[in-house]
């Protein structure tokens, strides 16, 4: 294989591509047997393979494609009409061709297969059909001979003007065309076709046909602008760009200490170009999802035929692009889901009719970009999932206890489908029902950072929703420090950050027989100590408990846990690099990345870490973990509150729903404009309101300018950003304490300006801020402007 001829290799690549197209074309053709351009394209493909295989000396391949070509030419000339039998014959031929190509690729030989029966079938199909009157009688008459009989689709002779094509096809006479051209020349700015139709020289249908022929002839020009590139070359480019990004970062770091303007300009330009280059190279790795979808019509057809069902497949968003590595890893899960939908989802025609549906089932695939992710939906209009059956089966298989099962919500029942060993199919078919099912799909999708969700309408169908990241190569991640080393945590798993200080740090963490937990808004959050899990605890680290505890709340599978780390640094876009084979066995790490300073940092695999720490057990034995996240949001009797430390050390709260973001600004970043304090924020000017001055009668604003005050306050100010009607305003607070979940029930009204009253939150009296009132007082125009705008 190493020394295989370049010509053969090129032949293989080209033929395989064409065969994929062929599968699709044949399915299209079956629906619309008269689609001439499709037939022509199929004919061309087989003709090319036949020609090349004869030239390269592959007699079997040539023999098979030869009979196929004969059959196709009869179809093309309208002497035969495509029916299911012929389609199956042609598909079988495509399979054989593919098989031979695989053999050639691996051994350089055609292999020993005997294809005489196929050849016989194909021969019989071309001969037998003509003699047997019955099928012809049912079929519509062959296309009339007037339809471009002399048009040979495989010779691309049609880079011709429209008029000439029409004349050649015998659908307009030369004089008429000349006349029309003359009119055009004289200033008639209608199109040639329009003129001809108006003059009654030809029919609109003929023009349509001719235009198609023309377009077909033009399309090869498109392929001239494409070249084939080896994927490994792209990978290499990607690596080099990663390196360049790194070098750029270092230069930028260095340039911040420099004064030389021309150097600064150059490094700025380098920065821009690198970013653009990075995006460009990323794009080269993107492929449309249609590349894998294109196989599905064939899969669905074969499968539907074998289970006696009628299924029609429709796709939307084929052009949605994904990174090549992701495309590869979702191929199998998607195929599985499509097969599932046909096998389990869609009912037999009889059943469908009985329940008042059309006999033909409908499978709908949709892909689209949303929020930096790719969404893929696979929906069928089949029977849907019978939750009662799910319940029954899961009890039978011992996945849940009977009394437990009766208490499960619909959502939880659906989640049971993702457990290993679950299948509702009554009998094991060749396709599915062997218990290798959705759990594998789910695992594979989650491996690439995606999620799967089922939506079920019993009796009406099922929709599977998959969300996956655009690319795996560069991901946002949180950088943390543990025992002096940095680790990156992919942002997809990150829920929130909790910092416990002083008293809280000592008392906040409770132990249950050696297992540490933290009460996060009333729920117990299991804690995992990263140092401990990685066995990197430095000796003599007794003072570790001292100042503060940093908890990174993570989602693994359907569970949450808190990861205790030494330090939380920042979020960064990181370039994911694989680990060497020597380290593949460690499931705790998903890879490594290179930080701005050139050092390597490991990327944590959150699921692997959770498994290691037994937060989630390796075998998913419990299916109802979703409660924590689900039920919380269903609690309508409470609201999330942001807790702050107000002036005079009082505790204050505001609804989290009014908080757009929490920000920290350097004190020196505060500027003054129009008599108010402002900061530059995301390219805009953010006006600031000081909570302390908003709450007290006497307006006294802190000073920022000048040498820092002897009081020695923090270098940074904490700002709660409120966004309303397209504007933002920042509320400067002393300190952000926590987030609590509590029913908002004012227990005591206070007269204090800017507050609504007091209530008890987390066992302490807390004043509830009147956020809108404060903004209104500080900036009477804030809400008005919005109305005007």
């Amino acid at each position, binding site marked *: 294989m190493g020394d295989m001829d370049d010509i053969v290799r090129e032949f293989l690549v080209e033929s395989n591509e064409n065969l994929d197209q062929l599968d699709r074309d044949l399915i299209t053709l079956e629906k619309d047997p008269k689609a001439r351009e499709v037939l022509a394209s199929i004919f061309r493909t087989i003709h090319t393979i036949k020609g090349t295989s004869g030239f390269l000396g592959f007699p079997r391949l040539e023999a098979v494609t030869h009979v196929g070509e004969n059959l196709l030419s009869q179809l093309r000339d309208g002497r035969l009409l495509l029916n299911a039998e012929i389609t199956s014959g042609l598909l079988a031929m495509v399979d054989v061709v593919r098989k031979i190509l695989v053999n050639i690729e691996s051994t350089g030989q055609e292999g020993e297969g005997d294809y005489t029966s196929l050849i016989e079938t194909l021969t019989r199909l071309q001969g037998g059909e003509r003699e047997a009157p019955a099928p012809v009688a049912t079929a519509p008459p062959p296309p009339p001979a007037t339809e471009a009989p002399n048009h040979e689709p495989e010779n691309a002779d049609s880079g011709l003007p429209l008029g000439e094509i029409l004349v050649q096809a015998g659908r307009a006479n030369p004089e008429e065309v000349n006349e029309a051209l003359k009119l055009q020349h004289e200033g008639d700015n209608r199109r040639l076709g329009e003129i001809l139709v108006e003059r009654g020289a030809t029919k609109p249908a003929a023009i349509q046909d001719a235009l198609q022929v023309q377009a077909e002839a033009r399309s090869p020009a498109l392929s001239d602008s494409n070249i084939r590139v080896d994927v490994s070359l792209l990978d290499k480019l990607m*690596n080099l760009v990663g390196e360049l990004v790194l070098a750029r970062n270092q230069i930028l770091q260095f340039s911040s200490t420099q004064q030389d303007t021309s150097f600064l300009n150059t490094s700025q330009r380098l920065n821009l170009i690198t970013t653009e280059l990075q995006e460009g190279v990323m794009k080269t790795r993107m492929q449309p999802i249609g590349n894998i979808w294109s196989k599905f019509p064939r899969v669905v057809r074969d499968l539907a035929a074998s289970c006696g069902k009628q299924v029609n497949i429709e796709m939307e968003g084929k052009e949605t692009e994904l990174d090549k590595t992701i495309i590869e890893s979702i191929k199998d899960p998607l195929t599985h889901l499509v097969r599932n939908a046909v096998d389990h989802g869609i009912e037999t025609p009889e059943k469908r009719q009985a329940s008042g549906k059309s006999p033909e089932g409908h499978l709908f695939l949709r892909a689209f970009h949303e929020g930096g992710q790719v969404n893929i939906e696979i929906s069928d209009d089949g029977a849907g999932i019978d939750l009662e059956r799910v319940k029954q089966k899961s009890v039978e298989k011992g996945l849940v206890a009977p009394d437990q099962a009766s208490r499960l919500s619909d959502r939880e029942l659906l989640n049971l489908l993702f457990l290993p060993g679950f299948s509702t199919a009554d009998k094991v078919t060749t396709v599915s029902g062997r218990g290798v099912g959705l759990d594998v799909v789910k695992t594979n999708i989650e491996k690439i950072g995606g999620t799967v969700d089922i939506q079920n309408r019993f009796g009406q169908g099922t929709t599977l929703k998959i969300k996956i990241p655009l690319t795996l190569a560069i991901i946002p991640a949180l950088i943390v420090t543990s025992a002096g080393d940095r680790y990156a945590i992919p942002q997809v798993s990150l829920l929130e950050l909790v910092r416990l200080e002083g008293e809280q740090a000592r008392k906040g963490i409770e132990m249950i027989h050696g297992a540490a937990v933290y009460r996060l808004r009333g729920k117990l959050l299991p804690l995992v100590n990263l140092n401990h899990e*990685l066995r990197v605890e430095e000796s003599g680290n007794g003072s570790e408990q001292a100042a503060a505890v940093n908890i990174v709340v993570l989602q693994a599978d359907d569970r949450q846990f808190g990861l205790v780390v030494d330090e939380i640094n920042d979020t960064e876009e990181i370039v994911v690099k694989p680990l*060497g*084979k*020597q380290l593949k066995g460690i499931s705790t790490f998903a890879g490594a990345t290179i930080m701005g300073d050139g050092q390597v940092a*490991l990327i944590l695999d959150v699921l692997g870490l959770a498994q290691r720490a037994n937060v989630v057990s390796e075998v998913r034995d419990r299916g109802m973990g979703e409660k924590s996240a689900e039920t919380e949001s269903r609690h309508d009797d409470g609201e999330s509150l942001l807790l702050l430390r107000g002036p005079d050390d009082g505790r204050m709260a505001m609804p989290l729903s009014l908080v757009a973001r929490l920000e920290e600004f350097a004190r020196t970043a505060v500027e003054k404009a129009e008599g108010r304090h402002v900061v530059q924020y995301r390219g805009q000017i953010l006006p600031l309101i000081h909570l302390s001055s908003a709450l007290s009668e006497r307006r006294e604003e802190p000073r920022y300018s000048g040498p820092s005050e002897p009081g020695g306050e923090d270098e940074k100010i904490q700002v709660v950003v409120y966004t309303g009607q397209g504007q933002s305003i920042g509320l400067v607070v002393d300190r952000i304490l926590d987030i609590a979940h509590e029913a908002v029930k004012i227990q005591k009204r206070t007269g204090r300006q800017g507050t609504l009253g007091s209530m008890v939150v987390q066992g302490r009296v807390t004043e509830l801020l009147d956020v809108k009132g404060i903004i209104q007082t500080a900036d009477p125009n804030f809400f008005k402007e919005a109305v005007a705008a």
Partner: protein
Amino acid sequence: MAGKKQFSTFVVDQLLFGVGVEKVQEVIRYQEMTRVPLAPSVVKGLINLRGQIVTAVDLRRRLGLRERAATDLPMNVVIRHEDGAVSLLVDEIGDVLEVEEETFELPPGTLAGEARELIRGVYKLKDTLLIALDTDKMLNLATTAALGA
């Protein structure tokens, strides 16, 4: 066999070792390493080789030799391996030597321990012995007891 072979040589714990020169991608000075928790103990860390992340295997540990003094910084012999490069941490870099195939001898049966698996044999040079290493076996950590350690 033409009878001659070229070896990249290096010193580990005062012994002279060599690997086929065609296997060596490059030799670089000490690089800062990021340790890998939970990894086999022979993996000393990860280094950044111009944007590529390379696993560094400590040859002293791999061969069961004495630990290197903390103050001695090892050099990297970067080996081309099936899936990317791997670095071998050695004490000192030697010359590229051309050796006669006829001076080759299999390791003595008395050679004990894990090292026996990793040593292909010995070339008898004029005043010293050159120990030829089997890089594939050396970098295959899965089959050895080196894991767990």
